[in-house]
């Protein structure tokens, strides 16, 4: 124990560390380190420095670099030290190079030779040190140089070496998957290694390989199940226990692998149910590591073919997580919930209050995770609340990375689920105002397209209403300082196109506004271009309709300025605008037809109108035109003999590799889809390799021996429809609900006061008995776990809380009248599959419950303690629901605005379908929308990178 104290360290070194430790400021520290750098430079370069001293200097150099200073002058000395015969120095040298150098550093080439030699060393510690360096430093180019030795080491007698060799190969396969593809069988063999450490290490590369191509490894499912079983039964040496759990890290890795193998594969999943269930039962949920395994099991369950028993166990575990006081567990609970709602949407209902708590939590991490959950469960019924929340949060944060992410999510959700275009435009305005430069430019174009195309139906009134409301909102917004460029472009375009369309604003007013925009952004050529084109459109419209036109002085000066612009684009636009004034109405109408953005412009690509001219020219002796590709083909046929004929060849040098002449798959098809339709190769031979084949489950081998087309995983990857779990159907939940409500003592008298009671009960309960709150939440929101047993005590509470009741009454009064009498209860925030009740049932009005719910959440802020205050805040939420129920009734009340709701290009599903009572259908729709949408699933971390280009 620490017997190496001192370890050859000089007093000088200790003093250095001490002085840095005691330095008061960064500047002081920097000064000390810089002085140290100077000393080291001199000493390292001194040829007379003894070797054992060099070692200390190298460690001092490490220290310097760790503190953020440049130590590159000493790298070469570290490299030299790896060459040393002395193990002590060699080890220090390897440590230093692994810390100093990246795999692309020039000095790597000087080390490869040493590594090669050391990998063959008799001393296993030298081999270990070399393998550590291999993992860190070998890059794609140098892999072949060490690969044979590393493979040899897989059979080394020391398990530490075998383990590191496996990990080195794992690293190789990450860097260059092709380099080790022929070694896959070695990984399989290492699963049967005598040493559990080596077996555990082999799981890492196998996980990656399986992740890349599941079908190749289906036969291993049985082996993994067996291994996991043995681990769970404590067959591994005691030293692998961690906090009384048997080899938990290996368990977690195995669970990860199982979930890959079981995804979309019923047969494989069935082999796993027993063991996963066992593990979940055995988990010690009081320790962190037990919870880690539990969490991993839930993840596994959520990706296996659904099994009601396991899902139930997973739901219980999630409930435990969410009820926990630990933020870590809450976080994992939310995450697990996000995974599970894909299979079983109802589960979220039970945890609505907990979810809302997490959303309100001061912990940013938890909040973001909750937004992930909300994002996944957004449907057309709750999109407004969720997106509003997201935008609110987006405005409040500074972290541009997350802001980008959440902005694109808002846009994505709004595009997919927007209940109406008005809302869509308002939402987009908000997003653009705060984060326009962070979202994809395509989004701006979509917005313009939507405004231009309107609802895509015959109803022109609705279209023009939409446009004038857009114009109006933009005229209001554009006065604000510091609008993002992309947003200004949209504004300019819309004003140019529709600014005077409804006759509300005069041409000169709009033109003046556009001139202001151009003037206010002298450095932004794109905005200026949009502005001047907008001006041109308005003038053309005026001229075309025969109105007298006079050039505004500010416009005149703008044109003059642009004529002298360095940007040729701006110049051209200015010249075009100038020339518009010289034309007559007929010509202008032809050039700039009114409201024609959606018209197709026909382009004659063959230039057939020139045929006559060409014919004449050829007759007059001109050379006929030969296409460029053919010309090349003639001139340099020898060079391009091996080329595909239709491959476009150019004169320029080609830097990219020639692509393989195979038909590429369409990009939008996920890889899983493609691979799972292929034939599955059968490799039954590996079953023999299992360490303890006797304990294999009986059903194991039958699956792997038949060759068939696998189509059963295809849809399941993204969509819910094919995966519909054996959860209670909508009608049966209905029944449960009715039954549960009927025996309530006062249900006959009036449902309203009772619901009010129970709504603030939840508040009351919240503060007093947190675990109770969640059960109450379930009962409030009509989840299946409802029971009357909890009702009486909460009603007792209600009597002591008169002022709260008043408050909720006042908040109810502030809600718009339209919302009070819902023939169908409007959907709630977390509405996922709860079927709505027939109107004849004395229903609990979910509205009041929501008021109560949000009332409570408002209460946490000190400002809203007064009743009126709270009520006014409530109305924000309730009015949203009012909107919803309005649109839900649109089939009864055919006002022009809501009539067009269904036809928007962005939201292909009609509101009746989405808002109607059949939520299952709506869910399926949503799943479909997501499937069809740009980004089918949020699983992929690259999603937003993709979105943002």
């Amino acid at each position, binding site marked *: 124990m620490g017997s190496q104290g001192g370890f050859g360290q000089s007093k000088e070194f200790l003093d250095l560390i001490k002085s840095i*430790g005691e330095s008061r400021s960064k500047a002081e520290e920097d000064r000390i380190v810089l002085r140290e750098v100077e000393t080291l430079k001199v000493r390292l370069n001194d040829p007379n420095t003894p070797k054992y001293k060099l070692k200390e200097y190298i460690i001092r150099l490490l220290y310097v670099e760790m503190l953020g200073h440049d130590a590159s002058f000493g790298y070469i000395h570290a490299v030299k030290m790896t060459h040393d015969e002395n193990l002590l120095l060699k080890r220090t040298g390897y440590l230093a190079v692994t810390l100093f150098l990246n795999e692309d550093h020039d000095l790597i080439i000087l080390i490869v030779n040493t590594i090669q030699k050391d990998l063959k060393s008799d001393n296993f510690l030298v081999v270990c040190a070399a393998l550590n360096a291999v993992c860190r430093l070998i890059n794609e180019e140098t892999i072949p140089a060490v690969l044979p030795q590393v493979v040899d080491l897989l059979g080394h007698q020391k398990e530490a070496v075998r383990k590191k060799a496996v990990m080195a190969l794992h690293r190789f396969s990450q860097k260059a998957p092709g380099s080790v593809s022929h070694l896959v069988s070695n990984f399989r063999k290492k699963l049967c290694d005598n040493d559990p450490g080596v077996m555990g290490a082999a799981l890492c590369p196998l996980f990656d390989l399986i992740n890349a191509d599941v079908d190749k490894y289906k036969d291993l499912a049985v082996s993994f199940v067996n291994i996991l079983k043995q681990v769970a039964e404590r067959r591994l040496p005691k030293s692998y226990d961690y906090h009384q759990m048997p080899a938990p890290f290996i368990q977690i890795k195995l669970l990860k692998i199982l979930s890959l193998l079981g995804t979309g594969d019923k047969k494989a999943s069935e082999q796993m149910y027993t063991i996963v269930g066992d593990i979940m039962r055995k988990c010690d949920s009081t320790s962190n590591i037990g919870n880690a395994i539990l969490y991993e099991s839930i993840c596994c369950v959520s990706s296996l073919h659904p099994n009601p028993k396991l899902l139930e166990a997973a739901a219980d575990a999630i409930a435990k997580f969410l009820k926990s006081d630990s933020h870590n567990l809450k976080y994992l609970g939310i995450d697990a919930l996000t995974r599970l709602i894909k299979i079983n949407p109802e589960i979220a209902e039970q945890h609505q209050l907990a979810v809302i708590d997490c959303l309100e939590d001061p912990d940013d991490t938890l909040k973001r995770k909750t937004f992930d959950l909300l994002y996944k469960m957004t449907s057309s019924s709750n999109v407004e609340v969720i997106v509003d929340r997201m935008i609110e949060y987006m405005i409040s944060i500074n972290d541009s990375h997350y802001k980008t992410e959440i902005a694109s999510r808002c846009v994505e959700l709004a595009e997919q689920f927007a209940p109406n275009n008005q809302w869509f435009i308002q939402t987009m305005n908000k997003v653009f105002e705060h984060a326009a430069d962070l979202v994809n430019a395509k989004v701006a174009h979509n917005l313009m397209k939507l405004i231009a195309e309107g609802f895509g139906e015959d109803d022109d009134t609705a279209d023009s209403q939409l446009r004038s409301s857009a114009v109006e909102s933009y005229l209001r917004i554009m006065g604000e300082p510091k609008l993002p460029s992309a947003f200004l472009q949209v504004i300019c375009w819309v004003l140019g196109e529709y600014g005077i369309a409804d006759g509300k604003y005069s041409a000169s007013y709009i033109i003046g506004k556009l001139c202001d925009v151009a003037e206010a952004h002298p450095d932004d050529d794109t905005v200026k271009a949009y502005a001047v084109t907008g001006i041109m459109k308005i003038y053309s419209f005026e001229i075309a309709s025969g109105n007298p036109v006079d050039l505004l002085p500010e416009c005149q000066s703008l044109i003059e300025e642009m004529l002298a612009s360095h940007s040729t684009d701006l110049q051209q636009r200015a010249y075009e605008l100038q020339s518009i004034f010289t034309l007559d109405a007929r010509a202008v109408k032809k050039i700039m037809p009114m409201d024609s953005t959606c018209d197709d412009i026909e382009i004659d690509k063959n230039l057939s109108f020139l045929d006559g001219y060409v014919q004449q020219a050829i007759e007059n002796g001109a050379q006929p035109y030969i296409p460029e590709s053919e010309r090349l083909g003639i001139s340099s046929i020898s060079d391009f003999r091996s080329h595909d004929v239709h491959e476009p060849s150019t004169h320029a040098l080609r830097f990219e590799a020639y692509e393989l002449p195979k038909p590429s798959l369409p990009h939008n098809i996920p890889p899983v889809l493609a691979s799972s339709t292929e034939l599955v190769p059968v490799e039954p031979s590996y079953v023999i390799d299992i360490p303890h084949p006797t304990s294999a489950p009986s059903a194991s081998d039958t699956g792997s021996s038949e060759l068939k087309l696998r189509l059963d995983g295809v849809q399941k990857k993204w969509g819910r429809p094919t995966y519909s779990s054996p959860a209670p159907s909508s009608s049966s939940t209905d029944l449960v609900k009715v039954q549960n409500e009927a025996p309530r003592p006062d249900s006959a008298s009036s449902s309203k006061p009772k619901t009010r009671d129970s709504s603030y009960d939840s508040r009351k309960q919240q503060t007093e008995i947190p675990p109770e709150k969640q059960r109450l939440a379930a009962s409030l929101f009509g989840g299946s776990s409802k029971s009357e047993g909890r009702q009486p005590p909460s009603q007792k509470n209600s009597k002591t809380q008169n002022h709260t009741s008043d408050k909720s009454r006042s908040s109810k009064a502030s809600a718009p009248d339209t919302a009070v009498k819902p023939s169908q209860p409007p959907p709630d925030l977390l509405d996922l599959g709860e079927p709505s009740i027939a109107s004849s049932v004395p229903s609990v009005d979910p509205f009041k419950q929501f008021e109560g719910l949000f009332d409570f959440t408002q209460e946490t802020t000190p400002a809203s303690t007064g009743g009126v205050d709270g009520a006014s805040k409530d109305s924000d939420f309730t009015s949203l629901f009012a909107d919803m129920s309005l649109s839900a009734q649109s089939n009864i009340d055919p006002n022009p605005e809501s009539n067009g709701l269904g036809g928007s290009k962005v939201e292909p599903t009609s509101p009746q379908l989405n808002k109607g009572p059949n939520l299952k259908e709506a869910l399926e729709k949503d799943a479909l929308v997501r499937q069809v949408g740009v980004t089918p699933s949020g699983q992929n971390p690259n999603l937003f990178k993709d979105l943002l280009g």
Partner: protein
Amino acid sequence: MIHFVLLISRQGKVRLTKWYSPYSQKERTKVIRELSGMILTRAPKLCNFVEWRGYKVVYKRYASLYFCMCIDQDDNELEVLEIIHHFVEILDRYFGSVCELDLIFNFHKLPRAQAYYILDEILIAGELQESSKKTVARLIATQDSLVEAAKEQASSISNMIAQATK
């Protein structure tokens, strides 16, 4: 996979860094600054995880020292939290009291290089390679004994040189 391991003192001083993914020196400095700003300011009872540039950083405080590991989005946070604890337990067993960890990393007592060697036995290429404390301890002990022998050899040589040059 684990992209890097950072040990930062409560005052924001770096005690140990290990990078498993390539970061330039400039990026490293930036990462450390960004993360210490984020993590050191977090209140005690919050999650031990923070989202950062599309990754997750799991951290845990022991005495006045923060252990941080950066992982991928789909990794198991709680597992990584336990990997940190696993590392700390091994350090504890090797160095003695965990309370003095900060001192250890402050070089007052022992070479920090030792902590790197231990870390190298636990993590490799950004993955956990050994979950048995015993195995790690045994390996480190073997290394130490060999190193001890080498050290004696070296010092005797240096003594010889010193004597010869007298």
